[in-house]
């Protein structure tokens, strides 16, 4: 069966195509439209998926949308009614959003693709998350935990699932917590109060938390308290997400923690004000972890299963994930490379194949590389037209040159094969650098990524060497496969891994297996042989405000804008010529 999965209209729209039960293409709309977190109907992504598989829309057996728009409308309307009369300000906008567009998804898909309405299907938002986590994971039986801001009504679900290759698959969600009580929206309120963009700046809260101490944890526990049945509830007096479209926290929140941070001013965690922000971030992080670890622990007891599949935007919180692994007694944690809403496109397509249409399960390849491939000849043409040094070199020589250059402080743009599906650069669209030089971290933050100085960078290490450098709990290697866990750097290595060790001595490490990205693995091994440790700084290949690069032209553009030293696409290597960069390459009238 040929099934197209679509997620759209909230943030980070995406499309994914499965054929006979296996993913063949998946890409976020932002990677093609070049508009970060693009929520629009993913026509470019759909077009690319179909072209990649040489299909026409009429060849599709089914199109599945990742959530139920009518049920979502029910939630929006009920929330507005419950907020009467204070909700009058947001009613017009909310109604225009829902009944002016988002409710008519079936019609939109039909109008855009020309697919008959009867072939268009829907599933639950959290079931899409669950399917994305479970049906792609190499496990036959697992407990399921999904948590995000909100889907239709559910904000968090627990359940269990089973499958076997060639046999049936089954996912049953047992219980859920309903809006407005939401771990995702709880964290978003702190994100907004700290002056970061919601749905994008949550990483920054997590990074900032490491600088603080959770001295407000008591107060935060009042805001996010436990219910008698083991779930949780928000004290809604502190939040505004159920009353206002553009506000996340209330006046009471401000009375408790003080005025929100001015988003235009930098945070300096060494100042008293900066420490205050860091302490609030640490408190929110601490309480989030407590709640999610408790729920996971209870789920482990209830199901007796040793594996946990984690989905939803909250699963991007690597610190919380690592704590679940350490404290909940699950032996393995599976977080997909795209646990957020974009990943739901793939989850929904797999759910439709296995469960809606009852097709036998087939094990999915365990990698995130489902996007457009880089075309090195495009890069060769661009570089030649600009007169930059560009060479095709054999693998051994390429490794040799890169190891030498990185060791001397070069920063490398690295493009290989198909782009990653999901928010992280996992070895095909990366910026690579020396992990031992703190000045390198500052240079990349300041000159290349243009981001806050307190944000850490991630290391990448061959999976079989990870234990040497990082303190991993049992099952840690799996969590590190897609960079989903934060683990302590062993004290004896922290000095030599300064650029990738966060202030609290941890790192969000990717543990790379050779089969997943053989060339990067080979580079790491070569780097280890020359410099003593097979670890590189690995950050996504993009500039602040841009999506990760997809094509050779975007990689080349970013290479020049960021002032990277080398750009590699497959076996092609382009070298920056600093003397020529600004003068002869750029002419102005």
């Amino acid at each position, binding site marked *: 069966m040929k099934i197209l999965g679509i997620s759209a209209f909230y943030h980070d729209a995406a499309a994914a195509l499965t054929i006979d039960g296996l993913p063949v293409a998946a890409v976020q709309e932002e990677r093609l439209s070049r508009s970060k977190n693009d929520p629009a109907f993913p*026509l470019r992504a*759909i*077009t690319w998926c*179909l*072209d990649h598989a040489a299909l*026409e*829309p009429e060849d599709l057996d089914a199109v599945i949308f990742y959530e139920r*728009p*009518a*049920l979502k*409308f*029910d939630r929006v*309307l*009920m929330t507005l009614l419950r907020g009467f009369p204070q909700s009058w300000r947001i009613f017009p906008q909310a*109604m*225009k959003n*829902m*009944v*002016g*567009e988002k*409710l*008519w998804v*079936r*019609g*939109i898909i*039909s*109008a*855009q*693709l*020309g697919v008959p*309405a009867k072939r268009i299907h829907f599933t639950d938002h959290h079931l899409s998350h669950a399917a994305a986590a479970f049906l792609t994971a190499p496990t036959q039986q697992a407990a399921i935990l999904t948590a995000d801001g909100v889907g239709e009504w559910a904000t968090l679900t627990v359940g269990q699932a089973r499958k076997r290759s060639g046999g049936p698959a089954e996912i049953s969600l047992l219980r859920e917590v309903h809006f407005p009580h939401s771990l995702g929206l709880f964290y978003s309120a702190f994100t907004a109060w700290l002056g970061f963009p919601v749905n994008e700046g949550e990483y920054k809260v997590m990074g900032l938390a490491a600088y603080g101490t959770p001295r407000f944890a008591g107060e935060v526990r009042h805001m996010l308290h436990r219910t008698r049945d083991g779930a949780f509830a928000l004290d809604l007096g502190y939040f505004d997400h159920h009353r206002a479209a553009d506000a996340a926290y209330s006046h009471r929140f401000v009375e408790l923690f003080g005025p929100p941070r001015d988003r235009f001013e930098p945070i300096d965690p060494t100042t008293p004000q900066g420490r205050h922000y860091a302490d609030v971030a640490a408190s929110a992080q601490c309480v989030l972890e407590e709640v999610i670890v408790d729920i996971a622990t209870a789920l482990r007891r209830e199901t007796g299963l040793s594996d946990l599949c984690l989905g939803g935007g909250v699963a991007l919180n690597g610190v919380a994930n690592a704590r679940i692994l350490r404290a909940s007694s699950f032996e393995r944690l599976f977080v997909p490379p795209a646990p957020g809403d974009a990943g739901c496109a793939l989850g929904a397509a797999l759910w439709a194949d296995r469960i809606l249409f009852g097709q036998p399960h087939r094990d999915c390849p365990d990698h995130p590389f489902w996007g457009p491939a880089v075309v090195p000849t495009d890069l060769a043409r661009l570089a030649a037209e600009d007169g930059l040094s560009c060479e095709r070199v054999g693998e051994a020589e390429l490794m040799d040159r890169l190891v030498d250059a990185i060791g001397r402080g070069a920063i490398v743009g690295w493009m290989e094969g198909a782009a990653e599906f999901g928010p992280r650069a996992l070895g095909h669209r990366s910026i690579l650098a020396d992990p031992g030089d703190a000045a390198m971290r500052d240079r990349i933050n300041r000159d290349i990524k243009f981001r806050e100085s307190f944000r850490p960078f991630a290391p990448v290490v061959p999976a079989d060497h990870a234990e040497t450098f990082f303190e991993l709990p049992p099952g840690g290697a799996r969590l590190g496969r897609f960079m989903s866990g934060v683990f302590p750097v062993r004290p004896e290595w922290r000095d030599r891994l300064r650029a990738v060790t966060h202030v609290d001595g941890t790192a969000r490490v990717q543990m790379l297996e050779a089969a997943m990205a053989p060339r990067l693995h080979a580079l790491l091994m070569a780097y280890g042989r020359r410099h003593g440790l097979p670890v590189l700084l690995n950050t996504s290949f993009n500039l602040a405000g841009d999506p990760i690069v997809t094509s050779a032209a975007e990689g080349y553009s970013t290479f020049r804008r960021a002032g990277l030293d080398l750009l590699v696409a497959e076996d092609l290597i382009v070298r920056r010529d600093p003397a020529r960069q600004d003068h002869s390459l750029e002419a102005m009238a």
Partner: protein
Amino acid sequence: MIRHRGRLRRHLIIVGSASGTIVDLVRGLWRSTGGRRWMIPLVVFLCSVGVILTLAAGVEALAPFIYSIF
């Protein structure tokens, strides 16, 4: 290759399929375990408003006039 349709044509297709969505919504509310049947008249009214909004979006240049007629 996805065949591109004009904006108005797309919106007419959306409006044409709206009845199915409204039926789904009403059926869901009717069967809802949470006792939601009282919402049906409001939902049907708001969906009708939505159909007009969608039509208006199809011809954005005329949108203010369509609203005025409404």
